[in-house]
Every structure is written in structure tokens, then in C-alpha cells.
């Protein structure tokens, strides 16, 4: 499955990309699985995604949790806890 990834704030800086398109293995079915798979892609990915407690996600522009399904999703964004307002 092809998936567009978007990175924001320090996740973007540590990975060194603002996004990328990836082809997922079929056993990656939720946000937690995606993060675990991505963390092995490069040292930058591993470092950016190491602190799982400070990582948040949105699946197709909706806030998500680690167990949110990504089956059929088009886009997943990964970022730190939000700090607007």
C-alpha cells in the first residue's frame, strides 16, 4: 500500500524531510505499526521517532491514536503535541 507521510515541527527537522511517499508492507496496519516500521528506515527516522510518548499523529487530517487503523488511508502526519493558541 502506498501512503503519503507528512512531518511537522521537530519531527520534520530530525528526519530532514517535510514528507515522503512510502510503500508499506501488508502487516503494517495501524499508527503504532507505521511508526515502528518507519523508525528503522534511517538513523534520522529512528532518532525523530524514538520518543513515542511525545509523538502524535493524524490520519487523513483527523487526529489519531497509536491503535488508529491506517488501512485504506491516503495520508498520515506525524508531529509533536500541538502548541497553538
Amino acid at each position: 500500500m502506498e501512503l503519503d507521510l507528512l512531518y511537522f515541527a521537530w519531527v520534520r527537522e530530525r528526519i530532514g524531510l517535510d514528507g515522503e511517499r512510502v510503500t508499506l508492507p501488508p502487516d503494517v496496519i495501524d499508527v503504532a505499526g507505521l511508526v515502528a516500521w518507519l523508525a528503522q528506515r534511517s538513523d534520522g527516522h529512528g532518532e525523530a521517532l524514538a520518543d513515542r510518548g511525545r509523538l502524535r499523529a493524524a490520519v487523513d487530517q483527523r487526529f489519531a491514536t497509536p491503535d488508529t487503523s491506517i488501512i485504506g488511508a491516503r495520508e498520515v502526519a506525524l508531529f509533536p503535541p500541538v502548541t497553538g493558541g
Partner: protein
Amino acid sequence: MIDVRVQMERFDPGVELAHLEAAGGGGVASFTGIVRGEGGLVELLLEHHPSMTQAAMEEIAAEAARRWPLLGIRLIHRIGGLAPGERIVFVGTVARHRGDALDACAFLIDWLKTAAPFWKRERFADGQCRWVDAREEDGQAAARWG
């Protein structure tokens, strides 16, 4: 009745309040967030998730409209680089009675801080930059609304 904007440009709270006052209610409440220039801060950079922000803010406004009988809501959140003293965010509400306007205004700013995809990066006079950490109190403030 609901007006939500994400923009680089400055805004004028007086203009926003005038719109709310024209809605025919009995009470207008507002909150304006300003960049604090503490610790040698020279710029606050607001990053966001462009394809998600507008919808997330509209959802927060719709939730406020479900909870309180409001005649109008105006939300503005700026993005890009902001200097100390500049306005970042505006929340304005109008209702027949002050309690609804005040409560909805407080709810909106608490939720904007925790449920809209914005991230702040601080740049200081010595050239250092750091991403602002989410504050525990912000989560608690949003949680008190259930």
C-alpha cells in the same frame, strides 16, 4: 455566524468585535493572544498542518455552537513569523447573555491550544531556536470542559 480564518496577515480585534456586536446579542466576549517577548525572544514561528488546520478549527467552533446558544463566533489564528507584542490568536463570541459568551470564549481558546495542529518555535537574540513544549496545564484546561 461562524467565521474561522488561518492567516499570515495581522488582524484588528476592533473590526472583529464590531462584527460580533452587529449580530444582535446582549453580550460579546473575546480573547486576544499576544507574543510574549520574554528571555530575549525575537521571533515566534507558527507552523501548521495546512490541509487540516481550517477544518480542525471549524470543528472546534461547531462544538462550541452545540454547547452554548451563540449568535456568532469569530476565530483567527496567525501562522508564520511573529515579533514580540504581535497578536497571534483571536477568539470572539456573541450570545444573548454574558455567561454563554464568556464560557464559550474560554472553551474555544482552551480547545484551540490542544486540538488544532499548530506548533510554535521560538528564536532568541543569541540565535538559538527551540520548539515550544506542550504544557500539561493546557491539557488540563481543555479537559475540564469534558
